[in-house]
């Protein structure tokens, strides 16, 4: 019986053939390849990272970060300030390292996509239908309130109720969650319904093959037709292989997909720039014991400012994350907070930012990313930190440690406002985990990279089914939307 999952030592041939080549096994790629395989087509998945099922995941954060993330989770966007991007690079992609949060793109963003990017209403209707299929496929559920766990999320809930702010119990793709709080480093119990637990087994059952540790280096084409992909196998014995195929579905993510196209000299005039969400992390000290490490990842999102592009939620707590979040502070701060470990929690403000990043593919194999900080984002950041502080002080926090170099801690809103008055962008500590719209879908080939079918405008047989095709950032966790677009693109291709 032919192998389904290829490790570096399994590549005995130099040339492989398939009908559909799907590059990337994250949210978009897994959906695309699975639907194609279930329709009876011969599919090969190419995945740059390694294969780590639940049994291979453990609580050693540095070890798992090395295995599951690109560059150990420290891919920098150069700018002022520089931003750290934590990108999954393994079979299952970002769905292995995310919190499994399933959110639908809000209606006001869909309206933007229709009015500014030409997406038709029919597409939006179908995306909404696909959300239902996805939520069923991933066993999506709202997390139940835990009596003694997730007290950090409960703090947000109670404070929101007191302030009259909207909040929601998030929907997550989980089955019998064991509350290990290890979502960012791979769920060791298999409870998180990542692509490895859901779509990819279906694809394998229908004959799909997954080539792991296999990085696509170049697409060879003639005229408007792609012919084959040259890929490099990493590991002890590096070698190149060729995969000849009829169709290519690109799903390497919003950086790697345009990077591959640019390296292959496939022109994407409107591509190569992307949008992202900015995450600001605040460490809060409370008088009450929270034991925030107990319980699963965040369960409550404060959505009062959702239309403004701001979400507030609790974040994973581990001593590693306390120290890395506060790496801009003196060790005396870290010492103090580790002594009060049971009384602290980390909270994140996620902003739908206006800053735009650019991928430069001239420096060799790996992309270089620079971005320009949009001054509008500064207003939003101030707003986010003020709202976060209002909420956390209401929740009973006695001290907040801000993601701002040189600020130290604040103990009141007035103190924060005073420190925000002279805030400069270069002093901010920002991270991101959501990037999108580098190959946006649209109806005009001058302003978009893929047409409404998800096909590259100037290529007959190359499609994109990852976060790149989203016309803009969404302000919400994007996994479900990426999957919905993949459903739409594949179904249109198959004529369904």
């Amino acid at each position: 019986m032919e192998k389904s999952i290829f490790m570096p030592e399994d590549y005995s041939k130099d040339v492989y053939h398939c009908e559909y080549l799907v590059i990337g096994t994250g949210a978009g790629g897994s959906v695309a390849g699975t639907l194609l395989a279930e329709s009876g087509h011969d599919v090969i998945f190419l995945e740059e990272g390694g294969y780590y099922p639940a049994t291979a995941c453990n609580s050693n954060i540095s070890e798992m970060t090395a295995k599951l993330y690109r560059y150990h989770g420290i891919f920098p966007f150069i700018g002022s300030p520089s931003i750290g991007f934590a990108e999954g690079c393994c079979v299952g992609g970002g769905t292995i390292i995310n919190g499994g949060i399933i959110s639908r793109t809000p209606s006001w963003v869909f309206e933007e996509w229709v009015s500014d990017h030409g997406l038709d209403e029919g597409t939006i209707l179908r995306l909404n239908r696909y959300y239902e299929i996805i939520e069923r496929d991933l066993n999506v559920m709202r997390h139940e309130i835990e009596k003694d766990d997730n007290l950090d999320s409960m703090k947000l809930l109670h404070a929101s109720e007191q302030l009259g702010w909207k909040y929601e119990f998030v929907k997550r793709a989980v089955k019998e969650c064991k509350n290990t709080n290890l979502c960012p480093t791979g769920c060791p119990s298999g409870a998180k319904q990542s692509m490895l637990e859901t779509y990819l087994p279906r694809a394998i059952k229908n004959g799909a093959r997954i080539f792991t540790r296999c990085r696509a280096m170049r697409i060879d084409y003639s005229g408007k037709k792609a012919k084959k992909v040259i890929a490099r196998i990493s590991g002890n014995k590096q070698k190149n292989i060729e995969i000849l195929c009829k169709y290519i579905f690109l799903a390497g993510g919003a950086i790697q997909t345009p990077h591959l196209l640019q390296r292959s000299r496939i022109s994407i005039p409107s591509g190569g720039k992307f949008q992202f969400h900015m995450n600001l992390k605040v460490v809060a000290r409370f008088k009450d014991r929270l034991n925030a490490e107990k319980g699963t990842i965040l369960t409550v999102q404060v959505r009062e400012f959702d239309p403004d592009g701001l979400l507030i939620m609790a974040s994973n707590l581990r001593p590693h994350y306390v120290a890395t979040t506060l790496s801009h502070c003196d060790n005396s701060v870290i010492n103090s907070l580790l002594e009060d470990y049971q009384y602290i929690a980390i909270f994140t403000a996620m902003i739908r930012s206006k800053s735009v990043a650019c991928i430069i593919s001239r420096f060799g194999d790996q992309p270089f990313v620079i971005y320009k900080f949009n001054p509008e984002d500064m207003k939003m950041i101030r707003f986010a930190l003020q709202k976060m502080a209002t909420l956390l002080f209401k929740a009973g926090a006695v001290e907040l440690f801000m993601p701002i170099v040189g600020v130290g801690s604040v103990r009141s809103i007035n103190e924060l406002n005073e420190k925000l008055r002279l805030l400069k962008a270069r002093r901010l500590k920002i991270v991101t985990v959501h990037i999108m719209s580098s190959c946006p879908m649209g109806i005009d080939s001058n302003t978009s990279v893929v047409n409404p079918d998800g096909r590259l405008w100037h290529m007959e047989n190359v499609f994109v089914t990852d976060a790149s095709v989203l016309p803009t950032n969404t302000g919400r966790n994007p996994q479900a939307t990426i999957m919905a677009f993949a459903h739409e693109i594949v179904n249109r291709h198959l004529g369904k």
Partner: protein
Amino acid sequence: MLKNTLAGFVLTNIETLWLYKSLERANPQAIDDISTFVGEIINGLPWYYSLPSKVLLFITGLLCIITTGKSMRFLSHKRRSVFLKYIKIIPLFTALNELIRVLTFLRLFDILPADVTNEL
């Protein structure tokens, strides 16, 4: 020299943490463990990040030997702090230290003995 310079950076970033004393007692190889981890990550970065990082480490190490007669790792905490205070003027030094600091923290808590992590 690069290894000792990296170890010097690692030490600087953790020797004032209260956890470090417990770690040092339980695991005398801890600094080498963390330095190896950080070094492997720097080596694995794209060349336009790893090459400048290694050049900066080399320059820092060389300057340390020239000005103090010793590798960064073997300086006392006080002398190392003074040296690093002046070395900050080198362009991109702060970025390099931040990178090493974050990676050091990531590894530190995974090699702490169980009785220390239980104290948290």
